[in-house]
């Protein structure tokens, strides 16, 4: 087949080589599946990521606590009336990632703010009750969040995310 003077006819031989190559390549691809899949979270990690319940009763007004869910810090802030009002009155035009405070809380439980405590810049944990906006300040690169966990200033692109949670009763939430 290296001889150009021979007619280039698609032969049974070509078909055989292509078929062998293709089957070999498919096999190689399948071998990669377990090699890659083994790095995903294993079954016990997934099972341990089940929802957790948090009792809100001991959290005083104005206090922020930290709980851990799936290895991530979750901030639960019991906001004062003043803080809630302040958070609700911010103009959307002032927000890099516009979102109302109502969208970030559960109706009837506006005093409770539950956010994932991981800076949306590069993953550091912001410090509560500090910074210029009454919320969080990230020490790594200076991002500042307000008391609704919304980004106001600094390199972080987005608000602190809200984890999935629901109120089991007035003083108990289930996260996850």
């Amino acid at each position, binding site marked *: 087949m290296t001889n150009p003077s021979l007619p280039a006819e698609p032969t049974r031989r070509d078909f055989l080589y292509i078929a062998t190559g293709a089957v070999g390549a498919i096999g190689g691809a399948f071998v990669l599946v377990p090699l890659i899949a083994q790095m995903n979270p*294993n079954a016990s990690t997934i099972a341990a990521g089940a929802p957790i319940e948090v009792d809100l009763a001991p959290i005083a007004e104005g206090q922020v606590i930290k709980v851990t869910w799936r290895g991530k810090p979750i901030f639960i802030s019991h906001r004062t009336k003043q803080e809630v009002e302040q958070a609700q009155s911010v103009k959307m035009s002032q927000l890099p990632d516009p979102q109302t405070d109502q969208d970030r809380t559960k109706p009837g439980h506006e005093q409770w703010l539950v956010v994932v405590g991981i800076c949306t810049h590069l993953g550091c944990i912001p410090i509560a009750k500090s910074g210029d906006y009454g919320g969080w300040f990230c020490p790594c690169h200076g991002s500042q969040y307000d008391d609704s966990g919304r980004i106001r200033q600094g390199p972080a692109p987005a608000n602190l995310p809200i984890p999935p949670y629901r109120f089991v009763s007035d003083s108990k939430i289930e996260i996850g």
Partner: protein
Amino acid sequence: MSGPSKFQPTHPVLKWFEARLPILSLLYDSFVSYPTPRNLNFLWTFGAILSFLLMIQIVTGIILVMHYTANADLAFASIEQMMRDVNYGWLLRYAHANGSALFFFAVYIHMFRGMYYGSYKEPREVLWIIGVIIYLLMMATGFLGYVLPWGQMSYWAATVITNLFSAVPIVGETLVTWLWGGYSVGNPTLTRFFSLHYLLPFVIVAFVVLHVWALHVVGQNNPAGVEPKSDEDTVPFTPYATFKDLFFFSAFMLLFCWFLFYLPNYLGHADNYIPANPSVTPAHIVPEWYYLPFYAILRAIPNKLAGVIALFASILILAFLPWLDTSKVKSGRYRPLFKIFFWIWIATCIVLGWLGAMPAEGGYVIASRILTAWYFLHFIVVLPVIGMIEKPLPVPDSITEDHIGGHKKKAGAVAALVALAALVGLSVSSEPARASSEQPKPPQQTWTFAGPFGTFDRAQLQRGFQVYREVCSACHGLSLMSFRNLAEPGGPGFTTAQAAAVAAEAKVKDGPNDQGEMFERPGRLADRFQSPYPNPQAAAAAFNGAAPPDLSVMAKARTYERGFPTFLFDILTQYQENGVDYMVALLGGYEDPPADFKLPDGSNYNKYFPGHAVAMPPPLADGVVAYTDGSPQTLNQYAKDVAAFLMWTAEPHLEARKRLGFQTMIFLLVLTGLLYFTKKKIWHDVEHPTEAAPGQDPKATKI
């Protein structure tokens, strides 16, 4: 191999690169244009097969390390977690464990091939010695790796092998303490073995590079044992050798996958599923099969130091082979006398291997001594002498003459193999009547999960779980299982709600809470089964020192002697149900002791228990568990159900394994078939040169 490279790049970028680092031409000359003798038979593909196997071991090994914990308290459980929870963890771990056994299998064929065809002779002495070094490194690596699961066999293998060094005069004890990093095998031993087990494979890779380098300097030997004289005698490595290697590698993978998917524990020891216990040595401790001949040599010598020296000498003597064999003819094919002694020596190794697995007593020791003597005599006396007295057959003038001349010598090899088989059969059948005859074999039950398509009977697993919960769990834990497993696919098929209900009934110790106190709460799906005793000491104290063992992997940790030749047929029938058969037999094996049997206090007579005196009182009797599905409420039914349940707890991914195994086997059969025809097409013009057009170089064929 000298002279300018055949690789002449035309692309300017390649030229630029080639002028700075000629690695492409090196690879091209080594693996594409490299001339390889045209008459190589399939035995020459084992070099390539071994390279692939080494890759498999390294890749799977690196992955296992991602999930393994090198700590004496955690190692065993971390491997079990890998087998249960990590995605495809069972596959990767079984691939690594069986891969090592098949690596040795392949290396033995590779070595025996070299010995038969005189591949160690001038000019390949250095090549051969590097090979012996690789073999030594493999043995060390295999041993170190065997220790890592930290089961009973791991622990005692580590103890016995490190104690070999205590035979060194004067500094022996100091040396062994240094190896251990303590006063016995312990956590420091495990962590250093782990480190070295990770290091040595890369040392092996380095020596393999040297091995291949040396090979490419002197060229390959071939079945005729004459060196290539003209271009006609060789074909380029690619595509000829490449596709031959790929075909045989693919075929070898069929064998590999047979073990990996259907007999993953066949080549291992059941005792290694018992966590390491420094205060109890297993009754019968033997190394992995690939070390058995050397183990037999060690035990054959009644003196400690001499035994250790003999063990090492039996391996190191291989390095002197190029000078011990005095014959000028390379290939055993043309050496009638050598051929006979070669096969006798192979048989000696195999029988020594069998003796290594037998208890060191009576006739076995005598046989080991005779064969050990013969093993060494073969090298020291037989090889030098027959080289001088033998009259070799005429050797072909060239490789081409040998290749075209046909293969009429096959009959000799077949006869030798038959003789070998007969010899092995004879030596084994003359096995003295063993004391084990008083130990009856458990009857073989029928199991739904046996065989290549086996699946668990869900109803049976649910009943078995009921028996475990109502009877066994009073004394035995199931600490490797979580409640969530009950609802996972491939198991008893409970709903998540049912599993959660089972979990909720358990009291789980949790904490510390905000006050720093431990507290009890109802179990959740993610929790492990709770053991009836807080620790093994408490369990032992409650049962006169005999702690009831955890049952999680019990079905894999128990077995019984299968005997010859049954154990060989088990490879074909995929018999893996030793553990469950034994359990059923044991649970129903309680009897009144024979009159002459002295039963120790606090124990019970059981027909099937090794030694017959078992601490566990008969746990089951007809009617003790009330089944709701109408199954017979008999002891035998309970025993079968609970054994099946424990098979599932020991091997929760059994169904997935067999399913994936079937898919893989079908795929490999297709690939092997295609590679066979591809190889045939590629080799067609070389094997049938008369059909090639006149004046056309058959080797010009490219794919």
